[in-house]
Structures are given as structure tokens and as C-alpha cells.
């Protein structure tokens, strides 16, 4: 007896995946082939079309995790807990990729793989928080407590993130002037079209991945329950309501 949300996801997730693929294809075409190279940076500016959407999507993904954690603490729906766990892993993936692409971009433009740029530092701290979140999940034995503790960590981290961003920004501007604040890129229409398509594609891709991973976590627990390993019956009393 599979939860009806999981069955809805199975029915409709294809639209999200297809939409993501379409948007990303258009974004890739306009970004890699149709748009002109930047006057100063040359071809390297095309990294922006993958880096900026990844960074935006990881922030969106963390807000999904934050909202989901509050929702879980309020309703205690195990499916929401699965969604939070799925969101955390995917957020970590997007954040890590945003850092890696940022680093690859920094090499040709600033001639260094890593600089203590405020945004890079904030994202590194975000990645550390998410790593802690995923470790925490593995170290709690009781599934009820696991969800609760993880939600607490996600909420504290979510409240902390804006403060971290402000403090790191002040800290860097105090020590060195922000020499690369706009990275020499003025947003024109040529840049905006691929950026918009890639952003939409990444958001849809995030939604699609979130659905699949939620399914995966739920179905793993369901299979364990069927094999009689999960003693708690919360999942099934919830899904019947």
C-alpha cells in the first residue's frame, strides 16, 4: 500500500523532468553557442550560465529544506521528513557544484582557484552545515528523533545563513576592497536569455530530483517495513488519513 503522494509523484514527475530537460537544452544552446563571448573574459563568461543558476538553486533548495523542517516539526508527517532528507542531499549537491564551478571560473578570471570572496565563503559554510546535517542523520538510531534533530539543525542553520552572509561580507570588505563585485559583467539581453532558461531548468531539475529522492527514501522505508524491520507504524497510520 503505497502512499498516495508517492503515487501522484510517480504519475506527474515526468512533466518536471521533461520541462527541466527542455529548459536546460535551450539554455545550453543559447549559452554555449548562440550568445557572444564576453569582451574581457572571452569564452570563460559562459561558465556564468551554469554557475549562477546552480548557486540560486542551492539557495532555493535550502529554503525548501527550511520550510519542510518547520512543517515536519508542526505536523510530524514522516513523508515530509523524507522530503527534508532528500532536499538536504540535493542541496549539498547543488552547493558543492556551485562551489566547484565558481572555483573553475575564478582560475582564468582572477588567476586563483580559491579566493576568500564573501559569496564563496558563505557557500562553503553552507556546505559544511549540510555535511553536518547528513552526518547527524546517520548517527541517530530512532527515526522519530532523527527527523526531529535534523529539523532543529536545519532551522537553526536557516536562521543563521543570512547572519553568516552579512558577517562574512563585512569581514571581507573591511580587509580588502571588493574588487570583483560585479565581475565585469553587465547584464544584457544576450546574457539574460540563457541565464533565465538555465535557472528555470535548474529549478525544475531540483523539483524533479527532490521528487525522485523522496520516493526513493519512502520506498526504502516501506520495503523495510514490509520485511518487518521498521517497528514504528507511523508511516502507515499517516498515509491512511
Amino acid at each position, binding site marked *: 500500500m503505497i502512499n498516495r503522494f508517492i503515487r501522484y509523484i510517480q504519475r506527474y514527475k515526468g512533466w518536471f523532468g521533461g520541462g527541466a530537460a527542455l529548459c536546460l537544452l535551450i539554455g545550453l544552446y543559447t549559452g554555449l553557442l548562440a550568445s557572444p563571448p564576453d569582451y574581457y573574459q572571452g569564452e570563460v563568461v559562459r561558465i556564468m550560465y551554469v554557475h549562477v543558476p546552480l548557486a540560486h538553486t542551492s539557495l532555493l533548495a535550502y529554503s525548501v529544506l527550511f520550510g519542510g523542517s518547520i512543517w515536519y516539526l508542526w505536523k510530524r508527517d514522516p513523508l515530509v521528513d523524507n522530503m527534508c532528507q532528500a532536499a538536504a542531499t540535493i542541496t549539498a549537491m547543488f552547493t558543492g557544484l556551485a562551489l566547484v564551478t565558481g572555483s573553475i571560473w575564478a582560475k582564468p578570471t582572477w588567476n586563483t582557484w580559491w579566493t576568500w570572496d564573501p559569496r564563496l565563503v558563505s557557500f562553503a559554510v553552507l556546505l559544511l552545515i549540510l555535511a553536518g546535517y547528513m552526518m547527524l542523520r546517520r548517527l*541517530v538510531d530512532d527515526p522519530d528523533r532523527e527527523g526531529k534533530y535534523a529539523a532543529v539543525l536545519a532551522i537553526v542553520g536557516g536562521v543563521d545563513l543570512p547572519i553568516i552572509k552579512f558577517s562574512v561580507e563585512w569581514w571581507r570588505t573591511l580587509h580588502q576592497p571588493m574588487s570583483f563585485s560585479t565581475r565585469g559583467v553587465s547584464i544584457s539581453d544576450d546574457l539574460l536569455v540563457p541565464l533565465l532558461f538555465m535557472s528555470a531548468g535548474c529549478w525544475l531539475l531540483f523539483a524533479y530530483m527532490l521528487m525522485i529522492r523522496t520516493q526513493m527514501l519512502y520506498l526504502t522505508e516501506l520495503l523495510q517495513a514490509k520485511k518487518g524491520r521498521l517497528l514504528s507504524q507511523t508511516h502507515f497510520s499517516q498515509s491512511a488519513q
Partner: protein
Amino acid sequence: MPFFKTIRWIVWKDLVCELRSRETISSMLFFALIVILVFSFSFSMDQDAARQLIAGIIWVSFTFTGIIGLGKSFSSELQNDCLEALQISPIPKGAVYLGKVLANFLFMLSVEILLFPLFILFFNLDVVEELGILLLVFLLATLGLSAVGTLFSALTVQIRAREVMLPVLLLPLAVPVMIAAVEATRGTLNGDPYAFYSQWIQLLVVFDIIFTVVSFWLFELILDS
């Protein structure tokens, strides 16, 4: 039991335990001394270098000793199932939180006040004129650390690998406190005018308020059996 009475009893209990065993503060002090020694070995410092680095060294050693104290705060409750007693006793959990924050704050602050003269001695610091502002920075940063730290101490004490997980979870979240404390301390030690670093003190105040409130609400979930 009324709210404030609970806070008072929790603080009193922790202080009496500490006075009788002298476990936490002595281990924190020892650890901090070792950290200071290691730092002075690893950087050979003249007066100028000391000025640049000292604020960071002070706060790294304070933070790590603070984590030791925070970890002990709840792991000492594991003996004789005291943690379960706290969980099931009919007292407001928020009061337990505030009591623990206050006790940790007092432990950490006393260690810091004992250590600071040693820093002045070892690193040849000029004795600062603005000790009042420095004390304010110590107070605010320690309060911020213990506000978040107490929450995560109560959380990690109930999971596996608790000694590792407390710093792993706490340190990324404490990044703003660290930055603000280091910058404000450096400003004070350099004798900069107050306006240069007042924003860091404001940041510490905001951090303290937000995280005391947030942790106060979330603590109930963690100490809920």
C-alpha cells in the same frame, strides 16, 4: 515549579557540582593553556606579529575550550540517568535551557577571565585602556556561543559519536560570532576608536538575541523524550 525558580535551581545545581568536583573548569583551563603553548610554538612572534594574530589566537582557544565545557554540560547528566530525570520532570524545558545557558556562560567566562592575563603576559600585550569594551565583547560572544552551544550539546549528547559531532555542528553555525568577536577584539587591542568596530558589537547583540530565542523554542523538542 515556577519558571525563574527552575532557572535558579539548574544554575545552582551546576555550580555546586562544579565546585565539588572541579572537573569542567580545570580541564578547560588545562586545555586552554596547552592551546596557548602550541600557538606560541607554531608562530615565532614579535610585537607586531602578535598584534595581528593575537585576537584570532584568543578566540580560537576560547572557542575550543568553550566546546569542551559545553560538551561536559550535558554529558555529565548521563550519569545516573539524570538526563531522563530532566526529561520527565514537570518543569518548563525552556527554563532548563536558560539555566544551562547561564551555567555554561559562567564557566566559559570565568575561564576566559582567568586566561586573559596569561595572554597579556605571554604575548607582551600592552595593557589595554578600554578593558570595559573588551569585557563587553567577551560577555556577548560567550553568551552567543553558549546560546547555540547549549542547544547542540543537548542534541549531540543523545546521539552516537557525540564528542565529534558537537564541534562539527556548532563551529559552522558559530562563524558570525567568531568573526565578530575577533574583529572587535582586534579593534580594541589596536586602540581603534569605538566607531570602527561598533558594527561587530551590534552583530553580536543581534546574534545573541536571535539565537537565544530560537534555541529557547527548539530546546523543548530536543529534551522531549
